[in-house]
């Protein structure tokens, strides 16, 4: 069904945050902390990063002042929404010896429902990818499901592309096209709001607003076009699947291995990376606890099987990461594992750039 867009002001945005918390959502959104724009609890408009932006490049992030007071005038930061939907550390269950033998207690799933404010198009695509990974097929992940179901997503169409963004290359942005309840396009002090679901339309109806005109809608399209034209990075994505898999012995893998720290930062910040390590740890009382924490294909133990690690060299680990993201992911899940958010480039301590690596391999 089609929904009607509206225009809201700052009071409308405040009302939106208010309505979400009245409805029992835990509202999470962008806020300034530690010289960066991170995702955290948002109590009102004042928590948003008014007038802040980010300068991003390989291995470099700087929080900067804008010359206006835009609330969403930045690209994506160090956090991805996955830290809420797929937390870095989960306790799964605990088993304790008792008179009957053993008592098993599953850790309760949280009852809170999340509302995410300021989800970018690349992030919507990343969430859709993790939905595939965790919710489709015969093995549904109950922990992800509990957090994902009932989440309310307020997207923002990017008005500024970051220095490491390349969603335009990956067909994942900058304009949000699906997977949101509401989407905002920011003009000075005003927002075009477009519902994407019944829940979104119902919420919008409760906000102070005026009907959007053709001109408002046109203005919003222009914002997205401008952003698409100002991507910090570009990746020639067509044919990349075969390109990588046909070049598994390319000399560039040695070159990148010399630079790569195998620190795992790229995987931890990537909004689609989902790998975990599950461990059972017993304590001195005889109880055992099973936990699950984010792991990374950059750690040696990640590919440990009987007899040793399958990928002992950083070269094999970087190659595993990149060929999975851009090639075998397609075979596995039917989409690329990369949405072009640029986080792996910005947050790599030595600025290794996935777009540059593809270019180098394409180059011969």
């Amino acid at each position, binding site marked *: 069904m089609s929904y009607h867009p509206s225009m809201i002001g700052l009071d409308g945005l405040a009302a939106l945050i208010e309505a979400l918390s009245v409805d029992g959502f835990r509202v999470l959104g962008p806020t300034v902390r530690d010289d960066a724009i991170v995702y955290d609890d948002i109590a009102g408009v004042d928590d948003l990063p008014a007038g802040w932006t980010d300068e991003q490049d390989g*291995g470099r992030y*700087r929080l900067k002042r804008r010359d206006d007071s835009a609330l969403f005038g930045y690209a994506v930061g160090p956090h991805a929404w996955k830290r809420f939907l797929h937390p870095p550390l989960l306790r799964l269950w605990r088993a304790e010896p008792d008179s009957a033998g053993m008592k098993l207690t599953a850790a309760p799933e949280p009852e809170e429902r999340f509302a995410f404010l300021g989800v970018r198009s690349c992030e919507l695509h990343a969430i859709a990818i993790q939905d595939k990974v965790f919710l489709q097929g015969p093995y549904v992940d109950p922990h992800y499901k509990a957090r994902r179901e009932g989440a309310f997503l307020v997207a923002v169409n990017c008005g500024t592309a970051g220095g490491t963004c390349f969603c335009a290359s990956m067909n994942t942005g900058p304009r949000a096209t699906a997977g949101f309840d509401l989407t905002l396009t920011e003009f000075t002090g005003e927002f075009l709001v477009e519902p994407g679901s019944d829940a979104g339309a119902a919420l919008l109806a409760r906000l102070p607003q005026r009907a959007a005109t053709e001109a408002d809608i046109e203005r919003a399209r222009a914002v997205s076009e401008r952003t698409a034209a100002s991507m910090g990075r570009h990746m020639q994505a067509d044919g990349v699947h075969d390109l990588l898999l046909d070049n598994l012995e390319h000399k560039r893998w040695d070159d990148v291995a010399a630079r790569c720290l195998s620190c*795992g930062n790229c995987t*931890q*910040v990537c909004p689609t990376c989902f790998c975990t390590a599950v461990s059972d740890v017993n304590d001195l009382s005889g109880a055992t606890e099973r936990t699950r924490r984010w792991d990374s294909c950059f750690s040696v*133990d990640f590919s440990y099987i009987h007899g040793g690690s399958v990928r002992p060299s*950083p070269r094999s680990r970087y190659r595993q990461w990149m060929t999975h993201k851009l090639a075998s992911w397609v075979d596995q899940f039917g989409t690329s594992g990369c949405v072009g958010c640029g986080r792996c480039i910005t947050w790599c*301590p*030595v600025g290794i750039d996935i777009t540059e690596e593809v270019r180098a391999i394409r180059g011969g």
Partner: protein
Amino acid sequence: MAKPPRKPKLAVWKFASCDGCQLSLLDCEDELLAVAGAVEIAYFPEATRAVLKGPYDISLVEGSVTTQHDAERLLEVRRQSRRLITIGACATAAGIQGLRNFKDVREFTSVVYAHPEFIETLETSTPISTHVEVDYELRGCPIDKHQLLEVLTAFLNGRRPNIPAHSVCVECKARGTVCVLVRGAAACLGPVTHAGCGAICPAYNRGCYGCFGPKETPNAVSLAPRLVDAGMDKTGLGRVYRTFNPVADAFKKESERHGT
């Protein structure tokens, strides 16, 4: 009636060190009772004067070897121990006192002591593994008490300790800390350092100091230019690896590469 199974005997030995790692065991407060219940503390001068004769099921060894007397004592400790676990940077990678290995120790003693002739010490500080076989090396300056409990529990239960050897960065990201290196706040050794502390320093706006020594497959050479970008000078590049783990291979090589 069958006798209850004998509790494993635990001994805690000190070599050249500051006692900080042993104190981590006492610092286990809540969990200490469980430890005390699961083992028989046979030798732990920091905690009790009672001494039980060896052999010991598990020996925790703190400190490095800096005297001939200690080198001999260590052989005896090994002979008396079924499992020998080193705890901390001194025991595992020579500790701060390992800095002497790069200088002339007699010069130091002549400057520091009024009567250097009374000082009987070796030219070098060496890790425990230089002298005897070690069953497990727990990293850190000081060690993390949760990791110590984990290693003890693992050995008592006959399983492999769950102690990841990846970078500090992985812990940093799990905490949600904004990388100090990338945002230009500090030079950080996290990408080449073994996890274990929980990435404390970056959470307080500091770079990682490398307390847990090198991670698996460290690449300090590639990190160096980024430390310079974060404000470190050339002397710093070598010195930053000459701290608690100066003889750990990757750290030693990198400090030497910078002429330190």
